[in-house]
């Protein structure tokens, strides 16, 4: 069983936030720990109160920091690990978005490095979020089924990260719940000085308006997905 991390085209190709900032990413470091795939019966529903009941599970032994912005605009999702696994339908996936212990993102759970531009303004940003979140997700939802492993074959699963949940999507309606629940980039741009913004979680908590910081925290809780499928979040 191969497990991949995917920031989608939002992070590979850039996008326009809900408030009109054109955002591109040089790096989007995220560290995944305790990555576990499950065969569950009944199927796990992250929006229900029932706990996940696994008949079989496999775990990736080591945590790994990946750069979701790695590669060109057409880059593939990034392999986290390949694990020998019993056959079956792995219809749930969980992982912790954990603090990186070393490397360029050391000390951060999620580190976003890039540029935002709007109406002649440019902000070079480095956002270093530090609050760990555990995502527990159901079945992958997308163009194809994933996680169905037959004897002697291989299969894959995907931890998907939705950057539009944090910044919003300028191509969606302003009153789309995606945008009403997203922080956007304007509150962050307001913290920049001389076109530079380097902030960590503590600074954001101190500097953002309380309602904006709450929106950011909630958006990060909804950041992890399995394709288009949703996850529960514990922090």
């Amino acid at each position, binding site marked *: 069983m191969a497990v991949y991390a*995917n920031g*989608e*085209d*939002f992070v*590979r*190709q850039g*996008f326009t936030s809900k408030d009109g900032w054109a955002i591109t990413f040089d790096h989007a470091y995220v560290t995944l720990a305790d990555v576990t795939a499950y065969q569950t019966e*009944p*199927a796990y*529903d992250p*929006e*229900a109160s029932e706990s996940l009941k696994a008949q079989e599970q496999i775990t990736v032994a080591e945590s790994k920091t990946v750069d979701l912005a790695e590669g060109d605009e*057409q*880059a*593939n*999702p990034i392999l986290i690990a390949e694990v020998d696994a019993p056959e079956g*339908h792995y219809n749930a996936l969980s992982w912790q978005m954990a603090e990186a212990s070393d490397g360029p993102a050391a000390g951060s759970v999620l580190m976003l490095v890039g540029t935002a531009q709007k109406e002649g303004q440019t902000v070079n940003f480095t956002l270093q979020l530090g609050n760990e979140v555990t995502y527990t997700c*159901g*079945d992958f*939802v*997308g*163009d*194809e*089924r994933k996680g*169905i492993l037959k004897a002697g074959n291989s299969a894959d699963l*995907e931890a*998907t990260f*939705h950057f*539009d*949940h944090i910044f919003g*999507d300028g*191509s*969606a309606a302003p009153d*789309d*719940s*995606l*945008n009403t*629940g997203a922080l956007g980039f304007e509150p962050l741009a307001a913290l920049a000085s001389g076109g530079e913004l380097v902030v960590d979680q503590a600074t954001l908590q101190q500097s953002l308006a309380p309602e904006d910081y709450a929106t950011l925290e909630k958006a990060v809780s*909804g950041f992890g997905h399995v*394709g*288009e*499928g*949703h996850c529960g979040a514990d922090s």
Partner: protein
Amino acid sequence: MFGTARHAYAHGVSMSYQTTEVIEIQGKYDSGEPMADAQVAVYAPDDPSTPWLTGTADDQGVFMFKPDLSQPGNWEVQFRLAGHGDIMTIPVDAESNPVGTRGSTGGLNSVQKLIVFGAMTWGFVGTALYFSGRKQRMQKSADSGLQSTPSQF
């Protein structure tokens, strides 16, 4: 004794009906807005990788299908629309009773009875899928896109 006149019409109509059970699913966003024209894929227990049926929800986000009762087990139904999506499992036993349990507002309801004009549908299970809003770019993954075909049952 009076006779009863019978009239023969050139455009006679023959009507008949049968009853059967179908599963009805409604996809809604958490705002309550129906997932109109959502892409739907139904997976049978015997082959969860390949859609057994694909189709499109109606303008109320409703999709109905009649499972093949020779395949008891977990039937899975995926709704997708413009980057929003979810999948639900509907256990169906050999006695033709959908016994599903999922739904954000309380799960599959008990079997309800409904007669649809034309006498094709009789008895369905209703539930709702709820999705939080999202409009995404195409995600990068191996491709085997859904082929949308008219729903049929």
